[in-house]
């Protein structure tokens, strides 16, 4: 979605499907307009000459927020599993999966 390619309904449908969102035709039309305005705003910044500025890795002026490698109590398994839709053999049961994880 570079600035040379205006956002269209196909882009919105693709992004929605990647996020597992099901959109009605009305919603596709509405979000195409909204997302295009967001991209227009970003394009204004992209048009500026920022060659002298370092990229911002994070808006906070903090680095190296670390913790010691010390074990803390985990949650009670029964409490956690009692909130799962389906459990088998102390594990979360999910519908069958086709193919390996990425």
């Amino acid at each position, binding site marked *: 979605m570079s600035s040379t390619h205006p956002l269209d309904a196909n882009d919105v449908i693709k992004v929605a499907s990647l996020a597992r969102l099901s959109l009605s035709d009305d919603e596709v039309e509405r979000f195409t307009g909204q997302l295009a305005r967001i991209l227009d705003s970003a394009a204004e910044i992209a048009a500026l000459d920022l060659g002298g500025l370092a990229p911002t890795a994070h808006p906070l002026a903090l680095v190296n927020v670390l913790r010691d490698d010390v074990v803390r109590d985990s949650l009670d398994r029964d409490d956690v599993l009692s909130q799962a839709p389906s459990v088998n053999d102390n594990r979360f049961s999910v519908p069958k*999966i*086709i193919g390996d994880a990425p």
Partner: protein
Amino acid sequence: MSTLPDGWFMVVGLEVHTELRTETKLFCGCANAFGDQPNTNICPVCLGLPGALPVLNQRAVEYAIRIGLALHCVIQDSSFHRKNYFYPDMPKDFQISQYDIPINGPGYLDLPGGVRIGIERAHLEEDTGKTTHLGGTGRIHGSDESLVDYNRSGVPLVEIVSCPDIRSAAQARAYAAELRSILIASGASDGRMEEGSMRVDANVSVRRGEDQPFGTRCEIKNLNSLRSVQRAVEYEALRQIALLEDGGTVRQETRHWDEDAGKTHTLRTKEEAYDYRYFPEPDLVPVTPTQAFIDTVRTGLAPMPAERRAALVSLLGEPNDAQIDQLLAVVEQGLDHFVITAVNAGVNAPLALTRTANELAASDRSLDNLDAEAIAATLLLEQAGDLSATQSKAVLAEVIAHGGGDPKAIAKSKGFEHMADGALDLVIDEVIAAHPDEWERFCGGDEKLQGFFTGKIMAATKGQADGKAVSAGLRARKN
């Protein structure tokens, strides 16, 4: 060394994931432990519950830097990204990883044979949960239900990406083996492929000339042993060559290695590939290790395998080919300190090496707590002639089984008494006197009877006699 049809060349790059030996996970204080009861090491962070916030484990950063230094990487300021995909082993629906700026930039790894393989990057990321597929045939495609254990979710990983510098299946195996040795030596990982703490993916392509551009590559997953790495890379290169020679084209895709069948099959094509939509992780700030910290980590690094192999070579002087194979194996398995301890105790280096490479390496017991001094003491007895080679191996087996012990006491309990000078001569004379007919035939040229007499003498000495001394004693009397 290539086993490909004439004129064909393969190009391979490996991606190796290794779990770090931290006490806790990458972003929470849950225990990082293999083999615990399912779903006992889980909390809101590693379950991806709403509102939970990750905090980076300091030791995981240190271990990642250890790996980077061991691979001669550029250690740099880095940040984290979210890698988005939907799969039940990843409860947040994204994995926290490093994208454009990894903690470890370019480096290299030198294979024992001298070939240098470039390292593109080695970055930090979190592991996923463990999925077990049930139902059907038990294989992925036949499953009706999948069960998820999140104990592994959030365990720290470093992913080491090689450059496409590998040129044969044997070299791919050698790279994985050397990397594994380096990871273990760094103390950052235990390198246990059978437990999944080190996992290898291979990118394989072929071309019709070493100066040709790279062909279309396929990524092979599920390589769970060094043997699988070599077999799968070889199979995949041959598959692509056969396809191209038949006029077909290689599709860019992800393929799954089936160890039992010895084949790869399509997992997903490029069209089905995930679009991860990486974006900066807003809940984590950049990691900027100081030069002083990096220097401290560097100073604390244990000797790497190349240096340890060189140490064994210098003990041996000019090792022969068999000894070079032995010392490669001994360092690969982290057993070289047994050789060094024995040599320091006065054992000659070839004996120390060969017993370590055979008796110790072949043991199916854990050698982590084995007393190196007890091994050295046993080998000293063998070297002095107090134990025959056979007896020494029997005593070593006992020492290994108990993690140590007094070899003299073990030898005594087995009836391996040192034979007094002249005792063997006496036994040989007695055995010959008891079997005059056989002796006459042996002296007459029936060489088969050498075994008969050796057996009788060994039995009479309860195996204490040195085989070479028995043979020499028989020959001396025969003439």
